[in-house]
């Protein structure tokens, strides 16, 4: 006969004394391991609960698992003296033993194609809903243009501060760094051919046509598009959007247009800022690494750029503003469920905004080629 406090093994009987508690499973396992050999040799086991008023579920499942192992090996296993509560618990464990088998996940090639197909279909669905959403927003905007007093100007100012003013440092620094890198690398290559005097033109074109507007749009999408999605998504989860609806508010003019108007107002200036610091970066690279004086840089730049180059970038940014405000708000509105859904909406808002900004940029570039003097072939 051996014992470990609450467990005693003697003859064919394992007696349980007192209440086995959840945190004792290690000692229970050790005890069972110690006696496994002799229990197997004896060919049968009786669990005696006469001295046990109750048992926690976790140790019960350990005992249950051990008994299952024994009976699979052909031993006779029985219980005696168990109170109704204990008996009921073991019956429940028995009942769920088979349903507890985890479902086997099967993956076939066919499944992958099905997933791919449904993903593509859902993406198309999202795009068509988004176009519908933008239509609603623009019609609400049209209404507000006719009645400017109905615009929630306090919210517009709030979003202008959040999405515009507070974005100034990052929108100033990144294009500047990119301008330095671009100026240095391009100038270094051009010097091989003695063409470094064209570096200011290259910087001017690439920054004002593409890098300035695009970088500003990506930064605003990351900072503000995600914030709009999270804000509206959380409101959606907490039924606030429905509350506004039943109070008779037009969701589009109340929640979406203030964000869009704010971006209309700030985006062109953020682009202008990005252009200026980007070009300044190029100027710095020229004078530090390439013997291009600031005077030469500016006069070369002046020969290359026309006012349309700057204005076009600012105009493009208004299109980007519409995209970012709408995609962010739309993703927020689509949220159903809880915290995880808000997280997903935020991610999708950023990814889809940037994707659509690049598509829009490509289309606008085609147009630009025909508008700008000196470009069309």
């Amino acid at each position, binding site marked *: 006969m051996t014992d470990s406090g609450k467990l005693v093994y003697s003859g064919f009987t394992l007696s349980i004394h007192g209440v086995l*508690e*959840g*945190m004792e*499973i290690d000692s229970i396992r050790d005890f069972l391991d110690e006696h496994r050999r002799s229990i197997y040799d004896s060919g049968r086991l009786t669990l005696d609960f006469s001295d046990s008023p*109750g048992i*926690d*579920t*976790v140790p019960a*499942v*350990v005992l*249950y*698992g051990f008994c299952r192992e024994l009976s699979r090996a052909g031993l006779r296993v029985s219980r005696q003296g168990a109170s109704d*509560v204990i008996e009921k*618990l073991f019956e*429940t*464990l028995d*009942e*769920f*033993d088979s*349903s*507890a*088998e*985890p479902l086997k996940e099967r993956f076939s090639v066919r499944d992958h194609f099905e997933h791919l197909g449904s993903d593509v279909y859902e993406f198309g669905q999202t795009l068509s809903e988004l176009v519908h959403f933008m239509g609603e927003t623009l019609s609400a905007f049209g209404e507000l243009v006719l009645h400017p007093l109905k615009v929630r100007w306090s919210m517009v100012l709030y979003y202008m501060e959040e999405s515009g003013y507070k974005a100034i440092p990052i929108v100033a620094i990144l294009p500047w760094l990119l301008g330095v890198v671009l100026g240095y690398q391009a100038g270094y290559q051009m010097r091989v051919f003695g063409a470094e005097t064209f570096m200011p033109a290259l910087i001017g074109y690439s920054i004002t046509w593409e890098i300035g507007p695009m970088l500003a749009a990506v930064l605003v999408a990351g900072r503000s598009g995600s914030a709009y999605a999270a804000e509206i998504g959380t409101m959606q989860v907490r039924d606030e959007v429905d509350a506004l609806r039943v109070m008779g508010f037009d969701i589009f003019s109340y929640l979406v247009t203030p964000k869009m108007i704010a971006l209309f107002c700030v985006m062109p200036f953020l682009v202008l800022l990005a252009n200026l610091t980007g070009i300044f970066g190029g100027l710095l690279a020229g004078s530090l690494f390439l013997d291009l004086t600031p005077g030469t840089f500016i006069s070369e730049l002046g020969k290359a750029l026309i006012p349309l180059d700057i204005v076009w970038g600012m105009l493009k940014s208004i299109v980007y503003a519409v995209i970012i405000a709408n995609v962010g708000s739309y993703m927020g509105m689509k949220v159903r*469920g*809880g*915290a*995880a*859904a808000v997280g997903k909406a935020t991610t999708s808002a950023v990814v889809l905004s940037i994707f659509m900004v690049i598509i829009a940029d490509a289309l606008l570039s085609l147009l630009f080629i025909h508008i700008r003097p000196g470009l069309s072939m």
Partner: protein
Amino acid sequence: MVQETDVRPVLKVEELEGGWDDLLVLKDVNLEVRKGEVLAIVGKSGCGKSTLMHYLLGLLKPWNGKVLFNGSDIWSSPESLQNARKKWGVTFQSGALLGNLTLLENVMLPLKEYTDLSEHDMRIVAYSKLDTVGLSDFADSNPLEVSGGMQKRAGLARAMALDPELLFFDEPSAGLDPVTSGTLDDLIITINSTLGTTVVIVTHELASIFAISDRVVMLDPDEHGIIAVGTAAELRDSSSDDRVRLFFGRNLAAKKRSDRKCR
């Protein structure tokens, strides 16, 4: 239910003082939760019920005073709080289930954290707990697919996963219809009487208070603490405090109204 001979306090609050930021909510609170009893913490909205619950659960650190679990201060070391939490189960007002997991996986969470059972054994335990609250058929459902009452029951199954010594309920009847909240009350009584689990319940549902509590502690916002302790019937019938009678006398007002209608 509670046995007269065994009144050892499982949880004890001594001279507790605390609140949120600079706002004092509780002052000089002394409280005992006795082994095997169902203790209801009641009071009108804003009286500090939830704040007291935060202190009992170790979610807030007292400004002054102590919270003792089985005689040891839960704030004496990080381990003592962690060890105490292994023996507690908490069900939150909304159920607080994780939305990206099924009901079964939610119940398995504490088992994964605190035991080294095999996946299969964890599933058996989780199934049996869901069975206790009558939800084994919904094991693979997502929390959002089941009703509010079912979410709370699943939350209860999760709280019971490790067979806690002490079960906390925050407003179990909030937002439930009388039948569903009655079912939940029955479940609490069953767990308390068959498993001997001590229960602390924060509520303001009079029906629940009378149906399940052994003792009632009443808080008041003006006193920043406890104004009455006793059985629900004692507080209703023989309290000398107007505020207590007013709280428990809500059914008297309803009686007057029905009397008037009869006339």
